[in-house]
């Protein structure tokens, strides 16, 4: 196996693999190769994930006791703000698009690079500028508004580094706009001959849908946060009623971005799971047009449901009912996804390598997250559970259970392609199971806490909630260890892993037709696509 890379005809005259294209720091920091930019993102996102994760561990340790134990009230408020801002804006939103989208989209469409390689590099620099601002704030004393920056608390009352924090998020927002722009342009303009819309892998469809949301919604967030900074710095009244503004206006603007942002985080994972399920069931994804359509439908519907974050904010009863109805509609394309994956398993050839375990785990957690979304969409029930731990549990099932399981699934599925090495399979399977169990132990008790009435963002809480909090904190320790394991064995595999060869899983898709790691130009010559997508059953050209 070790020789495969040298003798692989696919590499041909395309030159050395992208990792060997240069060893200097300069060759990394000034690269325009989409694959190297993906690696830059992978490294920086991992660092940010560790920072956000450390904050989460501290939060859960504090909550083991119902009284103040580890940190002060302000310290706690800064920790959950830090956790939310880092995990959402500096990990989950960029995660799959910036790492796997960057690496895979050009390869999946048979192109040599993204449409705008320099914009791609600029996106990483913007991301790093925002991230460094974020870290500087932590060092400089923190920010305590919550990741939602609700006014007038953020614009007038908070005494922390709000302007720096919104500046960091503002800048990072442009980094996602650049990535989204590149993905849309690449998919539209750079597909290989024969690669029609009906032959695109579903990962490409889901990232296309994600990118459209990024392009349409992120500017709204940028303007909203800029207005917060303007009000704070100059006292011009926009959101603070004391200055003649309207605090609920902020909530409308904020959620107009931040609800679609949930789909920015989850849609890429839906695409990843489709790739994995097709590969390990050895079948074309059932209902391909419905799956692609469901991604687009979720992207569009996502823009019309923001008001469900504001059922008790004083918006009108009728507006609330309309937003409730529209929110329910999102369940339909989500259910279509799940049922089509199950139908794909039917009469397949299923095997259980690590990526497939993550895909199964994803489906389970996504189902729970989606169904509890119905609870929060049901407006009368929402009045009770809004801003309680029920909501905290629900969105962690979607954004951690869903988005992060998808990210880890993608990492394990494409790691052999990205690095050319295999990781220890048995250890990886155990850690996938560990993560799944740890996750449920952490977050399931929070559903119960929430319905019992425990509000979120509480530093101290009535004693009757303590037992379930202890369970949740115990689970968080497991979960944290479960996340560390892949970091260890994947790093180990860089040096000691067996060579992967071009296609260790026997997967379809253009990225698997070239060497692992791929050459800088991706393909020796431009591929020509003659087969239907996911042609696992060896069908003839249609």
């Amino acid at each position, binding site marked *: 196996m070790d020789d495969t890379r040298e003798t692989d005809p696919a590499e041909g005259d395309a030159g050395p693999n992208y990792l060997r294209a240069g060893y200097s720091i300069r060759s990394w920091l000034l690269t325009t190769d989409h694959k190297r930019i993906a690696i830059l993102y992978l490294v920086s996102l991992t660092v940010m994930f560790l920072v956000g994760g450390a904050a989460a561990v501290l939060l859960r340790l504090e909550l083991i006791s119902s009284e103040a134990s580890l940190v002060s009230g302000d310290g706690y408020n800064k920790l959950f703000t830090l956790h939310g801002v880092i995990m959402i804006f500096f990990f989950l939103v960029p995660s799959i698009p910036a790492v796997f989208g960057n690496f895979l989209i050009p390869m999946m469409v048979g192109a040599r690079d993204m449409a705008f390689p320099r914009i791609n590099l600029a996106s990483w620099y913007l991301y790093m500028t925002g991230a460094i601002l974020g870290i500087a704030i932590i060092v400089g004393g923190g920010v305590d508004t919550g990741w939602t920056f609700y006014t007038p*608390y953020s614009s007038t*009352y908070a005494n922390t580094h709000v302007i720096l924090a919104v500046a960091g998020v503002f800048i990072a927002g442009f980094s996602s706009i650049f990535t989204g722009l590149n993905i849309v342009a690449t998919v539209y303009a750079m597909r290989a001959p024969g690669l029609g819309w009906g032959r695109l892998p579903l990962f490409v469809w889901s990232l296309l849908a994600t990118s459209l949301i990024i392009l349409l919604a992120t500017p709204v967030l940028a303007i909203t946060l800029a207005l917060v900074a303007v009000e704070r710095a100059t006292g011009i009244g926009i959101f603070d009623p004391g200055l003649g503004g309207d605090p609920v206006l902020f909530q409308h603007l904020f959620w107009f971005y931040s609800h679609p942002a949930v789909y920015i985080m989850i849609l890429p994972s839906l695409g990843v799971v489709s790739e994995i399920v097709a590969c390990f069931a050895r079948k074309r994804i059932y209902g391909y047009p419905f799956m692609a359509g469901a991604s687009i439908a979720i992207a569009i519907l996502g823009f019309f449901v923001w008001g469900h974050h504001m059922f008790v904010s004083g918006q009108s*009863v009728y507006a609330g*009912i309309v937003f409730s109805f529209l929110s329910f509609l999102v369940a339909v394309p989500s259910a*279509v996804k799940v049922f089509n994956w199950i139908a794909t398993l039917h009469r397949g050839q*299923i095997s259980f390598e690590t990526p497939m375990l993550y895909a*199964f785990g994803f*489906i389970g957690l996504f189902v729970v997250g989606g169904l509890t979304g119905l609870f929060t969409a049901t407006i*009368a029930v929402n009045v009770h559970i809004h801003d309680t731990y029920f909501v905290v549990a629900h969105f962690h099932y979607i954004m951690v259970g869903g988005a992060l399981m998808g990210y880890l699934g993608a990492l394990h599925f494409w790691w052999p392609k990205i690095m050319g090495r295999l990781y220890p399979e048995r250890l990886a399977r155990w850690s996938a199971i560990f993560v799944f169990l740890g996750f449920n132990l952490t977050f399931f008790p929070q559903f119960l806490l929430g319905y019992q009435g425990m*509000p979120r963002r509480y530093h101290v809480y009535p004693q009757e909630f303590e037992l379930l909090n202890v369970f949740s904190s115990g689970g968080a320790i497991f979960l944290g260890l479960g996340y560390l394991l892949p970091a260890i064995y994947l790093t180990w595999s860089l040096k000691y892993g067996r060579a992967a060869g071009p296609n260790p899983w026997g997967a379809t898709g253009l990225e698997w037709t070239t060497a692992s790691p791929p050459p800088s130009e991706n393909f020796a010559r431009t591929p020509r696509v003659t087969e239907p997508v996911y042609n696992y059953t060896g069908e003839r050209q249609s």
Partner: protein
Amino acid sequence: MLPEQASTVAADIDNLYFYLIAFSVVATALIVALIIAFAIRYRRREGAEPAHRDRENWKLEATWIVVPFILIIIAFAWGANLFVEVSVAPDDAEEIHVVGKQWMWHVRHPNGRREINELHVPTDRPIRLTLSSEDVVHSFYVPAFRVKQDAVPGRFTSMWFEATEPGEYHLFCAEYCGTDHSRMIGRVVALAPSEYERWVEAADDPLVSAGEELFHDMRCADCHTGEPDATGPDLFSRYGTAVAVEGEDELVRFDREHLRRALLDPGARVAEGYPAVMPTFRGRLSDREILKLAAFVEARAEDE
């Protein structure tokens, strides 16, 4: 696993919650069962034939679009219907004003009686709360009643409920509002109507309640917490007694005059064993306000 059901809508909301749980459990069980069954039945075996390619079937797709749609429409309609009931107060509801401010709830009853971080209500009578906020967004949440409403600065919002069971229930601030968000809590005390009448009519010295409000506003309890390791001495146990002050051999009687001097010129008489960190309130408190504060401290000292 449920909080108490103490309002007229609590049981209705729990029933809808149970419908959603039942629906979710069935759906999850169906999905998990299918995945496990297929995973076992169609696991990859050595030398097996290539996977079978299922024919696409639009009827099947239509089924799993339409059936979930109908089931969720039931939940939507049920929830919307109940929401109208939860939102629209009956015409005969009695109105109580609630103002949120960092980090306490001020309550004012129709006859003028005030309370802080507590809300006394009669059972079996609809109560409408008119909410507002003096600073940031807060949210008035009583889990046992299954109701919640944001208190938004710059506007009035309202909520209503009818308590069914006499008792004491949690009152939480549910919208993050800064440092002591998790301490912006209190209790709702539901009383039988006759007891509520007695409570609300009970002669409540307006001086004392105004003093209590000032005590919160001036944040006296930040230092005078009553704890042994507090920055400031406990006021209620010392009021009316003779106390030791720094640099004086004789004890000083802690009375209204002492309180007044401590507020206006705190450096002159520092309580022995405590740091001289009390700021002056000269210019911030009028004599009339100091009298109100004294009335409150005196009343509390008598209680203890």
